[in-house]
């Protein structure tokens, strides 16, 4: 018995091992190169995500022991008004930020392209907000938006009515504006690179051939720009979903949940209210929605066969 077990599979595993050895020799360099990155990604990204997934089926105050509750967290989430509200808010942020960023940064790239003198200077200025710590940016804008703050002072100077930027009606738009203000220049540089790949002569030639603006766009500009549109829209979607710090510093989700983003709700519930399992379930939903959105974008703007 012992012999049979040990002898035959051993021979087999020998050949498998030698195959592995061969494979290892062949891929030695690749394995070596990939190892640190893969190790770090699995330790600090994959493993925590898996842990969060399991935590979503438990009731778990962080300081106590987790208790398995099956799908209860998900069931409760479906009827949790504040969760649904923050989910809608997050989608609202994305719906406002993603198209605005995609379009405005394109326009800004066109502007930069038609500027000849001082293009580098303007590029540097436009990318500048991206470089400043978001906590600082948020703090400064919070001051700017105070009821009697500098923006309202400027509006009044021009004889306009002051606006309550952080009121329930405006707060989401205001915060979206700050994020757009921050990122638009950064993405414009992406587009500019694409635009610079299209030589002026081709456009001029197409003019001569009698192509109208629409045809020029669909035939020449769009094919070059599509991959960049995809990149920008995917990055903008991820960015708009991660609107946390801005809300955290400026409004804490108020007034009346008007600016509460999903991540802020997840953070509050998990870390302030001792409901980490519940927060984990909300996080799983967050992740699934973002993943679906990004897949959809890839489908729309992705490479055509």
């Amino acid at each position, binding site marked *: 018995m012992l012999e049979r077990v040990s002898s035959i599979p051993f021979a087999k595993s020998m050949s498998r091992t030698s195959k592995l050895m061969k494979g290892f020799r062949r891929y030695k360099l690749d394995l070596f190169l990939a190892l640190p990155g893969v190790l770090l990604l699995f330790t600090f990204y994959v493993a925590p995500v898996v842990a969060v997934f399991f935590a979503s089926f438990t*009731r778990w*105050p*962080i*300081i*106590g022991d987790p208790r398995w509750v099956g799908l209860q967290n998900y069931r*409760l989430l479906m009827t*949790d*008004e*504040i969760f649904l509200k923050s989910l809608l808010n997050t989608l609202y942020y994305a719906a406002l930020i993603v198209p605005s960023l995609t379009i405005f940064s394109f326009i800004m790239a066109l502007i930069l392209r038609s500027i000849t003198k001082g293009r580098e200077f303007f590029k540097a200025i436009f990318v500048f907000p991206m470089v400043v710590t978001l906590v600082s940016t948020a703090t400064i804008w919070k001051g700017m938006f*105070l*009821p*009697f703050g500098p923006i309202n002072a400027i509006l009044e100077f021009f004889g306009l009515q*002051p606006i*309550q930027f*952080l*009121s*329930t*009606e405006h*707060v989401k738009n205001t915060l979206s504006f700050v994020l757009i203000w921050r990122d638009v220049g950064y993405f414009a540089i992406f587009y500019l690179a694409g635009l610079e790949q299209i030589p002026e002569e081709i456009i001029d030639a197409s003019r001569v051939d009698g192509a109208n603006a629409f045809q020029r766009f669909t035939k020449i500009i769009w094919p070059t720009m599509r991959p960049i549109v995809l990149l920008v829209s995917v990055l903008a979607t991820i960015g708009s979903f991660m609107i946390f710090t801005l809300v955290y510093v400026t*409004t*804490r*989700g*108020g*007034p*009346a*949940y008007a600016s509460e983003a999903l991540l802020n709700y997840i953070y*509050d*519930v998990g*870390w*302030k*209210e*001792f*409901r980490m399992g*519940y927060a984990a379930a909300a996080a799983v939903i967050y992740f699934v929605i973002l993943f679906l959105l990004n897949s959809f974008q890839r489908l729309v703007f992705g490479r055509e066969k």
Partner: protein
Amino acid sequence: MFKRCLLVFLVLVIACLGLAKTVQFWVTPFVSQPEKLFEPLLEEFKAETGIDVEISVISYADAVTKIQAAIAAGEAPDLVALSEGRFMPLVRFGNALEELDGLVSSDIMNRVVRPQLLDQYRQIAGGKLYVFPICFWTYLGAINVDIFEKAGVPQEFIDKMTDPNKYYTWDDLLKIGEMVTKDFDGNGKIDHWLYAYPGGENWVHPFLLWYWNAGGSPSLLDENGSPAFNIEATKKAFEFLLTLKEKGYMPPGVESLSAGDAIDMFTSGKTAWINNVWPSNSLVVWPQQFKDLNFRLVYPPVGPDNHRTTYFGSYLLGIPRQSKLKKEAWSFIEFLLKPESQKYIASKTYYSSITGDMPEEFKSDPRINMYMDVVKYAIPEPMHPAMARWKIIYNSETQAVLSGQKTPEQAAETMQRLAEQALEFYK
């Protein structure tokens, strides 16, 4: 770079080992720069007992997050500053705090000026004491005397607000509101308003002041132990705040003001009255920073059913169960409760000493006496384990009322429903 990193790491490990006998003390910034406040006390304590205490300042906003994380990882500090609203979840969910009953000597118990407070802490936590206060504070109101004079508010009103034997009502506030909310310089714009309600979410108390003032339950629970939000007091408070807003006695944008913004409105002369002033604001920061501000402290108003209330907060210290230096931590608490330490803390912070040991000059200071006076009817922060969510619920519904999204009835009803739903997790 890697070597440097390794070096930093090694240095840190060595530093950690070296500090092993140090009591780790986490404080919240109840005064600006608390580490400076405690510095002389730490030195004295070290000289007396040979025990080191290291202070880490953790902001109010993130204190709970950090405490939880530390306890979950088994790295809790030896001593941690908490508030009434914050210690119960730690006891309830993780049994994470050490019972102090065995440690407190009868001598200390006899010196505590408000022993009924300790009973309250025991009562909520099933008869055991988990936290011990070292000082406490109450809120007073304040008025901007210059605005009152400019608006011609009769002296009678100021007397009502400042005389301990008289009182002013919500109706009086409306009258004052009408007088002060005006365009005085004739440029077509209102110059100042009566009151800025700090609608900002990151603060516990502004709604509760009005709710209690209208006769709401001090513990936020009814006699059956369920949340008491859909009650007359809530609606009355909402209606009054809404009246102030609709009559224009509140500046625009109150629903998104943080506590600091609302104080800023008062100190920069935009509002004439404010109802939540800590001693550390009115007695420390304002006299230094706002020399032109001509203000007077006033008592809280009397609500529609003759309730007069204000808020009462304590600086509570707890010893996490995980701590290996519990005895040392407790001896530091005892040290802080000594008359000299208490006097020192009071003299720097203007907060009230828990043992009643105040500097001599304080006893004749009318402002401090006024703060002590309202202790009689001040209510401590509710201690229910669900407070973190409840706080967001009632603040958010107040914001919904102030921004005109909901009527007081709707908001009270939503508050009740959400508060009960939240209890699902705290059974």
